[in-house]
């Protein structure tokens, strides 16, 4: 047998190499697996440890792909027709975008056994809400007093140089900026007062980070003592022994429901339903409500843990703010560009 290659064998070899990723990908998906995007870090870890075994028992392999909500949208937009995920995990800001861009499908609730156990507010036609993230201030009680309002962070010199800020790529930060704008005379579609305060505050040592994860790293190194955060992030830091407390703004805490969606073009919708059903089941949500994740349950059979009650009282729940994403989303790109212009040295 000759080892000398012919043109035909070289072409066949190259074609085989080029086709290999597609063949592998199809066989992996055909074997009853789904790829679900999940927030990186504690969410991804918790879902891998808690949700994946339940989905596996139902007959589907759950592959978790870590990605922030905005990243998930960006990746789906880049792979329309052949989506990178079967299911996505996002907040209302991205849900609105995903609907308007035709990236997700309405679900059939009758295919979810645990649907009736969900809080009515968690039942949406585009998929179940698996939690509501409550946002406010994460602060270090050893370094600064408890912040009470967004104005405090700008008006009280004790916070100058100790607050971390990020831009509009983050949902938590976007909600905080909207509240800051409102505190200084703006609104959900008028961010100019917030940019004015930010520009003035830059000279007082404001720390501008690139992402929420970077902010948490800076917090742990005592580079900042306050940042806009969800209860979950504070619980996570506390569970690691970091001095961190959560403070609700007296003007109300912005709420961010987290929903699971069926991505249009998914090749395994049945697997996605199994995944959704597992994520809203009482067993899973009971485990996720425990430290270090402390994810607020949406299944009515799951009681609030004592630890969660220490973060959120009934009065706090009544004082939650649900922003109007339909007003916020059209402005987000312009605000993001303006934020960069304001903070750029």
């Amino acid at each position, binding site marked *: 047998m000759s080892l000398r290659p012919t043109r035909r064998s070289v072409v066949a070899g190259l074609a085989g190499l080029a086709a290999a990723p597609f063949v592998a990908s199809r066989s992996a998906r055909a074997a009853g697996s789904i790829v679900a995007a999940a927030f990186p870090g504690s969410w991804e870890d918790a879902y891998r440890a808690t949700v994946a075994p339940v989905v596996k028992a139902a007959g589907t392999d759950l592959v978790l792909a870590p990605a922030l909500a905005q990243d998930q949208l960006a990746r789906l937009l880049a792979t329309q027709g052949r989506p990178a995920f079967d299911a996505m995990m996002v907040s209302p800001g991205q849900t609105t975008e995903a609907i308007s861009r035709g990236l997700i499908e309405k679900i059939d609730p009758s295919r979810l056994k645990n649907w009736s156990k969900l809080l009515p507010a968690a039942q949406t036609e585009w998929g179940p809400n698996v939690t509501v993230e409550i946002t406010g201030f994460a602060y270090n009680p050893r370094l600064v007093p408890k912040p009470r309002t967004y104005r405090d962070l700008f008006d009280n010199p004790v916070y100058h140089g100790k607050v971390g800020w990020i831009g509009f790529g983050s949902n938590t930060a976007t909600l905080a900026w909207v509240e800051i704008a409102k505190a200084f005379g703006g609104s959900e579609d008028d961010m100019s007062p917030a940019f004015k305060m930010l520009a003035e505050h830059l000279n007082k040592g404001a720390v501008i980070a*690139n992402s929420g994860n970077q902010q948490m790293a800076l917090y742990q190194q005592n580079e900042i003592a306050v940042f806009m955060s969800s209860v979950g992030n504070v619980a996570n830091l506390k569970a690691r022994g970091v001095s961190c407390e959560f403070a609700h703004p007296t003007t109300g805490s912005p709420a961010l429901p987290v929903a699971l969606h069926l991505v249009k073009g998914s090749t395994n919708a049945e697997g996605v339903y199994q995944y959704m059903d597992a994520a809203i089941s009482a067993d899973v949500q009971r485990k996720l409500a425990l430290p270090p994740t402390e994810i607020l349950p949406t299944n009515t059979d799951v009681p609030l843990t004592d630890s969660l009650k220490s973060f959120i009282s009934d009065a706090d729940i009544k004082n939650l703010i649900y922003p109007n994403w339909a007003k916020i989303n059209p402005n987000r790109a312009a605000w993001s560009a303006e934020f960069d212009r304001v903070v750029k040295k």
Partner: protein
Amino acid sequence: MVRSGIPFVAPMVALSVAGFLMPLAVLAAFSFRDPAGGFGVGNYAKLLADPLALEVLFDTLFLGAKVVTLTTLLGLPIALLYWHAGPRQRSLIVFLTLLPMLTSNVVRTFAWIVILGRQGPVSQMLLQLGIIPFPRSFLFNETAVVVVLSQIELPLLLLPIMAVMSRADRNLVSAAQTLGAGPWRIAWSVLLPLAAPGILAGWVLVFASATTSYVTQAVIGGARHIYLPQYIYREVGVLFQWPSAAAIAMVLLASTGVVMAALAALARHPRLAAHG
């Protein structure tokens, strides 16, 4: 001989075509797509008319130049040490050069947060010496980005220089000494030309790596120092403007490509190439 070698290089060629050239072609085509679905140079025109984008482009190129300068200043003494060292010491220097590369770039970058932070050793040392009155952070400024990138990219400069020097004939130095040249003259007229191809190769690697190092630029520089990789990420991840991001990526590729091509052309100069 050439024909019989094809099967061995075919996988690499196929991988390069499928994993680099084809995506690059798609990216280039994407950069000419306008929001209405047509094709044109609108994304490039918008980019080049935006003062912020131009500032970010020049900041990125200057960042690369500053990192190349600092790595050269730090690297040349180590290269000289390598030249004068015996075989065992040379192995040790190569090992110590490679050692940081065994740790992830991300880990090294986060280690610098601790070093340059408010409670870090730099701040504490300056405080103890009475140079600063209270602990302060040395993060979030361009000097910090240049220092950190220089530490991270230093092996990329040193390894090509060491590769060139390990092949150089030591008798050239003896000949220069015999002809009466002093240490500085030898360094300038013999060692530097000998090392030049390695230095230029190192500059190309350091420049390309420093200008595209998203993690270090973002983590050490913070959001107030924006370089092109962060700018591209913002276009894709926040604004979902893929064509615009593709145009910025092509501009980054072209601008770093021009600098690298100039350095490569310099390396082919007869006077330098003769020593390679």
